[in-house]
């Protein structure tokens, strides 16, 4: 009888002890019960009061802890997102991680001139198409806030349609209010083949935000309840950034962000039990000189690692997170260092849906080059995270015997074992350069930014969706855009 195979330990980062996790959770419940939330949506306020919340002052509610526990009990522990062809694409749960782009940037680095300029709708399409082409990207977001939208109040409908036309991967989208949310839902139904089909195989996930501290504007909660009713997966992180909307100390910022998230989850589950909700606040920091919300800081990586621990220790729900972004203004060493830091830590702490990959300038500028090179950074981190399989084949004692027998000419490079295993044993970089100096110079002596630029251009020229959108659907989408 063979012995059992040795399991492979896959490196996993933990940042909280169980008691730390419990204390943050308890503080979040205390915030709901004692401080309360400001609920400006009448329908949601009534739902909460009927369920046991206590109103005080104008719009304020104190929410008993049992409502949070109930909501955590009824929300699904896996969110399954499909691609637009109806195939399973992302099973968001426990230790699964998926990377994708971010949303509304004001500027983008122009692929041709390298200049930072205002985004246009065509940029949304190009980012979506690049996401479609890159194997380590699992979902698309708009990566732009286009300036050339005919009707600015429907900006999110236009960007959503543009993404539909340029990727078949799942889409994480933004909406402003109920009206544009309904149009976006209509568009998604056109792709999926109706409301029932979209519920069965959702390919979209909505990103909405409450406002820290503790404020739930009416139109935000409208979107939350709409998504619950339609079973569109949604996340509702508030901007509980340390030093801005939340305390400067990360424990307090986490507790506040989690309290706000739990309040959102409660409303969501009271609206429709079992509807899919992606858990987790955004807890970054305000930079103490510029007051920007930092996208390159170590603290955000730390708070989302903490949240992943709390998922495993307490919540059980998949989480929303970030990675692969930077505060640098150009694709430089800072950009690479910060992006890699958050990619590695997000992966090692097993964050689930990891967005904002490819952001420059604390989320104000997007870069196709940054997205392209991040694809390779993700692959590098993934190789590390797979760990070291240990078995007879990988211990390779037979190969050692062969090489030894070959005498002084023995080298593993020539052995069949190397030929048979190198592709899975090693990370084989494509953009990261290991060529010899003369060869690198002969290729033009290009830095990583230039090489990423060339790869992005090439992919955008050659990549085709499988399949490209059919003409009938495209017309239907266009008709809706004309109608609004």
């Amino acid at each position, binding site marked *: 009888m063979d012995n059992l195979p040795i399991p492979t330990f896959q490196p996993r980062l933990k940042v909280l002890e169980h008691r730390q996790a419990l204390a943050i959770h308890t503080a979040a419940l205390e915030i709901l019960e004692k401080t309360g939330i400001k609920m400006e949506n009448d329908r949601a306020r009534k739902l909460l009061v009927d369920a046991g919340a206590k109103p005080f002052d104008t719009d304020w509610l104190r929410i008993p802890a049992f409502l949070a526990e109930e909501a955590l009990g009824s929300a699904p522990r896996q969110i399954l997102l499909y691609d637009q062809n109806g195939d399973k694409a992302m099973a968001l749960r426990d230790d699964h991680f998926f990377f994708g782009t971010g949303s*509304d940037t*004001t500027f983008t680095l122009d692929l041709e001139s390298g200049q930072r300029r205002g985004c246009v709708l065509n940029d949304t399409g190009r980012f979506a198409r690049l996401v479609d082409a890159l194997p380590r990207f699992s979902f698309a977001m708009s990566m732009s806030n286009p300036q050339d939208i005919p009707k*600015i109040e429907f900006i999110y409908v236009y960007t959503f349609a543009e993404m539909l036309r340029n990727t078949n991967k799942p889409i994480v989208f933004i909406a402003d209010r109920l009206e544009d949310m309904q149009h976006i839902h209509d568009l998604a139904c056109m792709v999926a083949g109706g409301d029932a089909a979209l519920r069965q195989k959702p390919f979209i996930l909505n990103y909405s935000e409450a406002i820290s501290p503790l*404020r739930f504007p009416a139109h935000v909660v409208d979107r939350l309840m709409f998504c619950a009713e339609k079973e569109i997966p949604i996340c509702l992180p508030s901007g509980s950034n340390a030093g801005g*909307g939340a305390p*400067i100390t990360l424990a307090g910022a986490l507790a506040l962000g989690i309290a706000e998230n739990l309040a959102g989850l409660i409303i969501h589950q009271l609206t429709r039990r079992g509807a899919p909700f992606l858990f987790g606040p955004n807890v970054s920091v*305000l930079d*103490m000189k*510029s*007051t920007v919300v930092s996208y390159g800081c170590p603290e955000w990586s730390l708070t989302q690692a903490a949240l992943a621990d709390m998922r495993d220790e307490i919540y059980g729900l998949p989480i929303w997170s970030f990675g692969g972004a930077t505060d640098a203004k150009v694709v430089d060493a800072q950009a690479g260092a910060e992006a890699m830091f958050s990619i590695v830590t997000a992966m090692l702490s097993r964050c689930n849906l990891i967005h904002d990959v490819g952001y420059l300038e604390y989320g104000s500028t997007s870069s196709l080059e940054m997205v392209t090179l991040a694809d390779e950074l993700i692959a590098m981190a993934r190789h590390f995270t797979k760990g070291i399989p240990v078995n007879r084949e990988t211990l390779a004692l037979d190969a050692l015997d062969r090489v030894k027998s070959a005498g002084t000419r023995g080298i593993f490079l020539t052995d069949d074992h190397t030929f048979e295993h190198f592709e899975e044993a090693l990370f084989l970089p494509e953009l990261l350069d290991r060529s010899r100096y003369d060869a690198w110079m002969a290729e033009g002596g290009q830095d990583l930014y230039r090489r990423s630029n060339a790869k992005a251009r090439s992919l955008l020229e050659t990549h085709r969706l499988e399949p490209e959108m059919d003409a009938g659907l495209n017309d239907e989408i266009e008709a809706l855009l004309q109608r609004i």
Partner: protein
Amino acid sequence: MTIDLNPLSEAVIKGNIQAATQETQKALDGGGDPQTILDQGLIAAMDIVGQRFAAGAMFVPQMLRSAKTMQACVALLKPAFQAGTVSSKGTVVMGTVKADLHDIGKNLVAMMLEGAGFTIIDMGVDVLPEAFVQTVSEKSPEILGMSALLSTTMPAMKATIDALKDAGLRDKVKVMIGGAPVTAKFAGEIGADRYAPDAGSAVAAAKELLQTS
């Protein structure tokens, strides 16, 4: 009689509220002129704070603490002024525009301007164009400051400027705008006088607009 205002300035720069208010009281009790205490003790200190911040030698919480310290001192000075004789660098009406509920950035700008000696009328968030117009009409501020975090609410800035024009008030007030999606180009397009990318430069821009120091 000359009163040494250096300890007061030092306390403001350090953000030591207790020491600064004690020094202010001491200066008043010693017969110091309130306007001199304000100009040479407090505002001079805030100018140094502003310079140190710009040089990267101070952080925002320290600067805000200095502003808070100054405000505590100004509160002590107020009764000593004859009504209406406190000099202000100018009045700024501020608010986050219609349908936008975000106010962290706007609040920072308001605190910084106050620290620099401006009088602030903060209208809060979700301020309708007609409300801005009414306040400008009633309070005759030198500057109107508008903030927006969302690209969908930026058009309300233009709507407010247009409403000021319709009310015949556009020439009476300088308009400054800011917020994450806002750009200098946008400011030019909608006919605002200035765009400021952050709280520190908002103070410099306000001073420049009013040609004061």
